[in-house]
């Protein structure tokens, strides 16, 4: 193909976004993706904080169980987990999950493991002598945790959990595999609908989806960077 032809194909392809509500539809699809990610992140941070605190308990059984959970979530690709939840649970337990519910369930379980490990790391990064200094000035355990440990761990955790948000949004792209009508699915519908009118429109649709993901994730990455820099100062 000549370069002028390519340019032509690309420019006509973008014309789909000026027809009807195509762009708005795509944005709505993105919104589905983002809301799944948002719910999963909120749940992950909540359960992850609890899980992280549990992991610092010095008990053999607790430690081994949490280690197994963490390793399993780490080793299994998120897509495999999604299949296990969507197809497996439906069959073996007779629970019928919608694609959305299965996705939120899986991403929360995965996010809890990741967040939990971050919380554990942050809690353990507070050096011993910080606790000892707290005790030396007569604080109770509760006061040591609230006034000494918590502020220090939060400073570490906030940028790290921003990174988790970016990862979560990227991972959410997988929900198309379990039949959720989200940005890619709507993109495919638009391509299908314009097959005859604008046969090359897939280039515009996928490019726009690509950059939609990029901008959403990029905002959170920038935020994480800024927070990380501020924390170092």
């Amino acid at each position, binding site marked *: *193909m000549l370069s002028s032809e*390519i340019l032509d*194909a*690309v420019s006509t*392809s973008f014309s789909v976004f000026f027809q009807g509500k195509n762009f708005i539809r795509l944005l709505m699809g993105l919104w589905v993706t983002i809301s799944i990610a948002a719910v999963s992140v909120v749940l992950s941070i909540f359960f992850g904080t609890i899980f992280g605190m549990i992991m610092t308990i010095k008990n053999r059984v607790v430690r081994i169980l949490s280690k197994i959970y963490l*390793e399993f979530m*780490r*080793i*299994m*690709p*998120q*897509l*495999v987990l999604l*299949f*296990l939840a969507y*197809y*497996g649970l*439906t*069959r*073996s337990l007779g629970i019928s999950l919608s694609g959305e519910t299965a996705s939120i369930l899986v991403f929360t379980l995965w996010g809890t493991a990741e967040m939990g490990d971050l919380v554990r790391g942050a809690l353990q990064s507070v050096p011993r002598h910080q606790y000892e200094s707290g005790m030396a000035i007569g604080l109770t355990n509760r006061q040591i945790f609230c006034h000494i440990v918590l502020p220090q761990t939060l400073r570490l955790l906030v940028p790290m959990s921003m990174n988790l948000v*970016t990862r979560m949004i*990227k*991972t959410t*792209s*997988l929900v*198309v*595999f379990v039949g959720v009508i989200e940005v*890619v699915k709507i993109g495919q519908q638009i*391509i299908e609908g314009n097959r005859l009118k604008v*046969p*090359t429109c*897939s*280039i515009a*649709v*996928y*490019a726009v*989806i*690509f950059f939609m*993901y*990029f901008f959403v*994730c*990029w905002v959170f*990455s920038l935020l994480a960077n800024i927070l990380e820099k501020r924390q170092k100062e």
Partner: protein
Amino acid sequence: MDFTFIKQVIPLYTEAAWLTMHIALIGILLSLIVGLICALILYYRIPVLRTITSCYIELSRNTPLLIQLFFLYFALPNVGIKLSGVQCCIIGLTFLGGSYMEETFRSALDTVGKVQIESGQCIGLTRAQIMRYIVLPQAVSVSIPGFCANVMFLIKETSVFSIVAVADLMYVAKDLIGLYYKTDEALLLLALSYFILLLPVSMLASYAERRLRYAQFGNT
């Protein structure tokens, strides 16, 4: 559980696993090369190239592999670039992995302190010699745990390959569920296959990390 069925389909899974590992291996090797080049460009702050590299890294880190593959496989043919599914996977994995490897390498390069470089200068070494004899050897050993984590991450990411019609593990599992309704068996084998592929890598990663933390040069 239908064990005769499982026995029958195991070869399908091993074949798919081989294909996945094959693509992953090529992708990881290429990522390493891309990552190292990008890391050096950013480390030496080479003008122009540095800006391009930063743009690439932002794009790569902030988009899902799945969307990258969609673009490569379904969009590019419209401008005359026709790639096979496997080619798309290799390119996508390299595009993704390059930025991860870059980050690992560069943070490892940064761990080699300024005084180390100045001492190299003081004994009259050139910039290239300082990189080769002082910075790189130290950076490489620091980057091994991060490298293992990246390998693990990239192998996991291969699970979306079925979207571009590559007959990987997910593809086989989806097929068996769709054709024979053997959901339990298919899923069990799927989970098991990834477990067998990734457990050794995961163990290697934590071993490398422990070794780096507790052992330093001169312990052997």
